[in-house]
């Protein structure tokens, strides 16, 4: 009898897990049941905002095909919820009255949007009923609501200055909606970037046509639209921001209630060890947004500095790939063999790259220190550990800002606004933990026009003009002095220009130069 794996949840992370388990399913090594609450198979939630502004289609968002999976032998159950987990009998009981036995159970229940405490919105976090004209932009139906507003060039109010809020705002504005971003704190992306970066970012957002209302604490929503729907967001200072659609983008929270209901330990998310196994429960695992890697060992140094779930899909996918390999090993042999698979390394702090056209922003790590904060920079620099160093470039007029926070030459934080090549390189360096060049300005010049210019013809007679035939400018001038007056003549005398022909203009230039000099 093959080992039965039940996966609760069918989002992007679960889809990757199923994909990676497929070879085992086809080989009859494991049986896989995947249970999704939505009627659709997994789709790419990261792109829901793009769908909401009409930039892509639901078909293009698909990450799994239920029919194809079923044909491969996967038991796909859509539109049902897991009511509870019977750990004693290793059963999950579903909302449609059926149940499924598991040898291994994987929670991939993801997260749900945080619904802020606003008057006019039902505060029950587990089952919020959002009024007409208010959406949390999480699933395909939410996308449809946004799409209608954008297509109608309506006024969209985005509550939340996080990365998802900004992406939605930029996309909706570019597609023709009138958009206002409302956030608390002095600048958007408050948790990810510093003041300078935030200021340049806010200016760039305004340049892209997005209105930004900072330092705003919202208190409630007003429903005075003709259909009784949303009409304005009310702020604590008594003012109101009018709009036709309110998009709530206030972060997400892991969905842990099912795990809690069956007695598993939870913190921010479902607590799992370095093998993604629930504490003290060898049959249950959790991955993705709902999982919090924090092992039960109090001495574990890694877990002392661990953050909660990242809310990013990349780490979840890496967990899915690793867990699939581990589960297949477990199904194929003794526990010790499976445990020889090295545990997944700890995730680096997430990198945030703003998904937007025509605007570029990347940030990662801790960017709170400023270049002259001696106290902050030297804190923790003991026992030979180098202090923090900051290099910074600010050009608000042109919407450019870069800050590199390093320790021992390695990035601990980065902000880059308006400099795409620099952002690409810095993110690379951050993820690899590689040392930056001592001349940090090198990284700033990547976006400069001088990087794109060709070398051009050098006036040094020793320098090669024709690479194909290896002929120097001096030799060509010699041939011209010796009587050649056309490119063809120079070519037959020196072979210059006889390969790719790319240097014909340069040869012509040298001929002209010679005759001009002669005439003068």
């Amino acid at each position: 009898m093959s080992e039965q794996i039940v996966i609760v949840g069918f989002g992007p992370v679960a889809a990757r897990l199923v994909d990676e388990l497929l070879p085992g399913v086809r080989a009859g090594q494991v049986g896989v049941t995947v249970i999704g609450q939505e009627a659709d198979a997994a789709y790419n939630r990261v792109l829901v905002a793009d769908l909401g502004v009409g930039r892509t289609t639901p078909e293009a968002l698909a990450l799994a095909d239920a029919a194809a999976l079923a044909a491969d032998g996967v038991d796909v159950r859509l539109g049902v919820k897991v009511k509870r987990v019977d750990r004693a009998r290793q059963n999950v009981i579903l909302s449609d009255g059926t149940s499924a036995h598991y040898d291994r159970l994987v929670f991939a229940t993801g997260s749900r949007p945080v619904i802020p405490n606003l008057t006019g919105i039902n505060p029950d976090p587990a089952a919020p009923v959002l009024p007409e004209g208010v959406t949390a932009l999480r699933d395909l139906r939410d996308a449809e609501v946004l799409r209608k507003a954008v297509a109608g060039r309506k006024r969209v109010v985005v509550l939340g200055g996080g990365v998802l809020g900004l992406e939605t705002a930029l996309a909706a504005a570019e597609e023709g909606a009138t958009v206002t971003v409302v956030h608390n704190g002095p600048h958007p992306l408050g948790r990810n970037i510093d003041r300078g970066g935030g200021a340049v970012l806010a200016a760039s957002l305004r340049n892209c046509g997005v209105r930004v209302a900072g330092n705003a604490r919202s208190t409630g929503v007003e429903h005075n639209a003709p259909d009784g729907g949303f009409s304005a967001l009310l702020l604590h200072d008594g003012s109101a921001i009018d709009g036709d659609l309110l998009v709530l983008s206030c972060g997400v929270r892991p969905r842990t209630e099912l795990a809690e209901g069956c007695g598993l330990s939870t913190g921010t998310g479902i607590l799992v060890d370095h093998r993604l196994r629930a504490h003290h429960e060898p049959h249950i695992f959790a991955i993705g947004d709902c999982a919090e890697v924090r092992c039960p060992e109090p001495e574990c140094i890694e877990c002392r500095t661990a953050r909660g779930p990242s809310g990013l899909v990349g780490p979840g996918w890496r967990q899915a790939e690793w867990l699939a390999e581990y589960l297949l090993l477990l199904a194929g042999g003794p526990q010790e063999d499976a445990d020889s698979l090295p545990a997944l390394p700890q995730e680096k702090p997430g990198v945030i790259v703003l998904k937007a056209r025509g605007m570029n922003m990347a940030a990662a790590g801790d960017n709170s220190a400023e270049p002259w904060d001696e106290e902050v920079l030297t804190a923790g620099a003991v026992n030979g550990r180098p202090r923090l160093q900051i290099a910074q470039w600010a050009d608000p007029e042109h919407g450019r800002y870069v800050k590199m926070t390093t320790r021992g030459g390695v990035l601990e934080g980065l902000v880059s606004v308006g400099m795409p090549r620099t952002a690409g390189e810095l993110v690379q360096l951050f993820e690899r933990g590689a040392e930056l060049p001592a001349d940090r300005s090198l990284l700033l010049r990547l976006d400069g026009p001088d990087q794109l210019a060709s070398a051009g013809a050098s006036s040094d007679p020793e320098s090669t003009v024709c690479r194909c035939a290896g002929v120097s400018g001096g030799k060509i001038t010699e041939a011209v002095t010796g009587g050649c007056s056309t490119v063809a003549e120079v070519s037959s005398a020196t072979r210059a220009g006889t390969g790719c022909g790319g240097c014909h203009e340069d040869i012509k230039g040298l001929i002209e130069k010679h005759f001009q000099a002669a005439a003068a």
Partner: protein
Amino acid sequence: MTKSADTHCPYCALQCAMTLKSPAALTPAVQPGSEPVPAAPALEVSGREFPTNRGGLCRKGWTSASLLHHPGRVTEPMLKGPDGVHRPITWDEALARITTAVKDTRAKYGADAVGVFGGGGLTNEKAYQLGKFARIALGTSRIDYNGRFCMSSAAAAGMRSFGLDRGLPFPLEALDTASTIMMLGSNVAETMPPFVQHLQGVRDASGLIVVDPRRSATAAFTADGGGLHLQPLPGTDLTLLLGLAHVVIHEGLVDTDYVQARTNGYDALVRSVNAFWPERVQSITGVPADLIRETARRLADGARRGGSYILTGRGVEQHVDGTDTATAAINLSLLLGLPGTARSGYGTLTGQGNGQGGREHGQKADQLPGYRKITDPAARAHMAKVWNVPEDLIPGPGLPAVQLLKSLGQPDGVRCLFVHASNIAVASPDANSVIDGLRSLDFLMVCDFFMSETAAEADLVLPVLQWAEEEGTLTNLEGRVLRRRQAIQPPAGARSELWIMSQLAEALDAPSTFSDDPETVFEELRLASAGGLADYSGIDYAMLGKGEAAYWPYPAGSTGTPRLFLDAFAHAGGKAVMTPVAPRRRRTPAANTDPAAKTMTLITGRLLEHYQSGAQTRRVSELLASQPEARMQIHPAAAASMGITDGALVSVANERGEVVCRAELSTAIRPETVFLPFHFPELESANRLTEAATDPISGMPEFKFNKVWVRLAANVLNTSVLQTSEAS
């Protein structure tokens, strides 16, 4: 009497047309192997008008004739004595020794203990006959060739997607009028300079897109409005291509009618690229998201105007995921509706002179002539009939090159090896191990006209002919079959490989026939290829001699196929297949044990002045003077942090070996990457560092993504001096 021969360059797959002129009248062609007349004086080379090179030649072509009378040429069979010195012997003795070695090895270890290693520089006739010779004269399945190191990934991808692999499924001139051309991992400005003429139009249209981690000479063409340069981290090309496909799908740039009518697998492909949105791809590749979008849009836009082409080269193919990377490039081209249309397409740029023909006629471990599969019963029956042998005499599939070389001297491995047109001691991955393998053989026979690094290891070196000394055909990068003409008499003592095979076949009492006449062999190749994918049955020497543009498939009675797939792809049902691919996790390289060294990524490649292992071009004084030694390209910022200055001696090492050479500082390379040319031997041999890990589908080794430990070499010398003094 003619005073000149119209032929083609001996080097790369562009096969530039050239004319060889001799001051004296040329003697008419004679049968190779007949009594040669004294060699004529040096030939004069000139470019000849032809669609691929338009009269242009590069330095290699211009200087190619200087090797014909090179003093270092091997002109007699050379036997290695017990003292390790090669001394001349007669042909009779040489052939007898080979026959004995083959018979002894077969008797002791079985027929598969004799191996054959061929090359993409062999003419069609020799490649065909070598495959036949291995299988029915030697009776071994152990034959493969150096094209496994070049074209196997793109070939496997083309087969998987289109059902057929011809490097460029369109004439090169088609590029002239394109609006957008994307070249991935190909540096034609150095590797085949006259090709660049075909990029002028697209540069004028600002439509050239070059993907290369280095700012190569080709990438520099994108400057000043010529187009775009995408500079991904080495080893991330596949992710970049998935990102481009993502943008094409999500921005509605898919040619939906084409995809519907001409492809299978669209839905699964959509799901597979979904996870690769531009910002995520930026985080992996370092290529800005907007540049990825811009590239996708230009490709789509070009397809609607003058045409779009996607071309891949070894830079993206020579990886353990090379087949998948080439497949991703093809998938992208299929989404955009490029292949099999009148003005657009996908192609791979074949490198070696006969890299195309060399992969069609049965030199590959898994293949029979006509690009047939050796495991296909119908193919075996066909070849048995052509060769007039029982079907079960044809062995099954052998081992691809890397595995073949790993088996040298091993139990159940190859004990007696024939090497043709290949310098495996320099050109193979993990070259140190290959050299160890060569030294562990019972018998090594190498056919070459110079004492190459591989020949130097041989028990017996047989002197063979150079390109201007014999007749034959080659198939260029477009799939066009060309005639190579004899212009000069070979040196006394050198013989054609066809003659050598015919002599050995006779000595070994082989069935079937082995002619030493190129045209006779070509006539047999026509029959053998008839009905196969690469069908040459309608091509003959006379029509090629008249310069007819013969593109395969060219079945008898047809006029050939300049542009493939216009009506249908070669899969049953006529549709192209989109196979979803995804990046795999890479193995973890060995840890750097040298605290003074910095771990960097090594990429390898070519210089304009040299060809392949350099066995020929390092012997041309003009080329050697220009590039006398390997230089490791490194970014000044990286160099500064290690105290490396321009021209300083550096050590580049890893768990497989060490290279010591001079550093060349250049901002054209990424700061975490170094570049080494692979044309040099011994301490400068880049392939001492490359890993013999292979692509699971094509058997292609990992040449372009290896971890190395770089440092100033002065330290190495000091430490070794120190150790010596301590020991003494």
